[in-house]
């Protein structure tokens, strides 16, 4: 587990900053994915 963590986290910056950057990038990608959904304003899911 430690080996994997060492491999994932670069030595050039603190781990928390790297994790924060990754989280921000993922959150931005998710927001873009959700907002790109083309729903009709009159869609209706009856069942």
């Amino acid at each position, binding site marked *: 587990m430690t080996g994997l963590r060492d*491999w*994932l*986290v*670069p030595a050039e910056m603190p781990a928390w900053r*790297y*994790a924060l950057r*990754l*989280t921000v*990038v*993922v*959150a931005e990608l*998710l*927001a873009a*994915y*959700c*907002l790109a*959904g083309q*729903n*009709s*304003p*009159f*869609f*209706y*899911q*009856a*069942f």
Partner: protein
Amino acid sequence: MGDFLRRLGLVCRVAGGLLVALLLLNLLLQATTRIAPAWLPYRLAGTGFRQDIVQRIEAAEAQYRDGRIAGDRALCVLIGLSGLREAADLKAMSAATGSRCRYLGLSGAGGAIDTMVDQTSRLLQGSLRPDVAVIGLAEYLLVKPLPPQPGAQGDTGSPSPGAARRRDWRQWARSTRDALWFVARRRDVSGAVESLLLDAKQTMLRTLGADRAAELNPTTDPWREMIRLELPPHPSEAALREGIAGYEARRLYEPRSYEPQRIDEQAKALAGLVTALRQRGAVVIVAIMPEHSRLRARLPDAAMQALRRSLDAPFAPETPRLLDLRDAVPDSGFTNISHVNAEGRAIVSQRLAAAVAEALAPGAAPLMSQPRPSR
């Protein structure tokens, strides 16, 4: 070659980090749905219905305010969801009540009573004073649909272990994808953002007076028919089965779904709406919309009892009139288990118009012709 591998390793490293962040974020979002399911509204309908209703209300207010229509007729508002929206033909109702009444169709779409209240909230903030308000609903609207819960039976909230056992990797990949929070709730996120933006736009247009520009456009005439979805006139056997199964997944056939503590929020929303309409002087009629015989056979008696209780408890002995139309339409008059077709619409419109005519006090001046009471 060594340099290439080093670079590839860096890319894999970042990709791995992003994957871990994605999974952690997904777990966090799924946890929020478990802890506070209501933080992001679960949408069964688009934002257009609410905007459409607001536009009708504001256009009607403008017509009364500018004197383009006189308050010589009683104002009747039709508040509801898809059941009433598909079932009421305003032209037929106007013909049935003659020149006594003017109908404003304010029915949207959704899966619970509080959605209906939210969609028509603009009515209670404005200057319209309806003489009669028809609230069209169904007893099962007391049960608010919840977003898919991870791991719940029959939903898309968890990867299918059965598919993996069967080595059906396509099905496994599909269920794994659907288990991701942002895939399952994508429509809710975009709907919430869209709703906020549209509200902001409408506020801006209202402030600048630009909402009056389209007054002469017939598509913005507030008295127009309500939106009807293009549904096939008769359901196939598969569509009926799908409808029945869809409601089953929402646990609408279980008597315990209608226990007081489970429906308390929706019951309060209904009571609040009735109270607010009465405070404006309206006679309130609660119409229970038609149901296909196969749906009626599955819904428990507890559902209707709960609805009656929800109206009796806050209002008895002045409980609003309950117009029970559940069995008013034969099965040939349905387009699916809970929406009527043209045949059913003709029947319901006549029944609603008759109820409205009875509710109008003979000789009484319409509320919109009287000076507005000071608050």
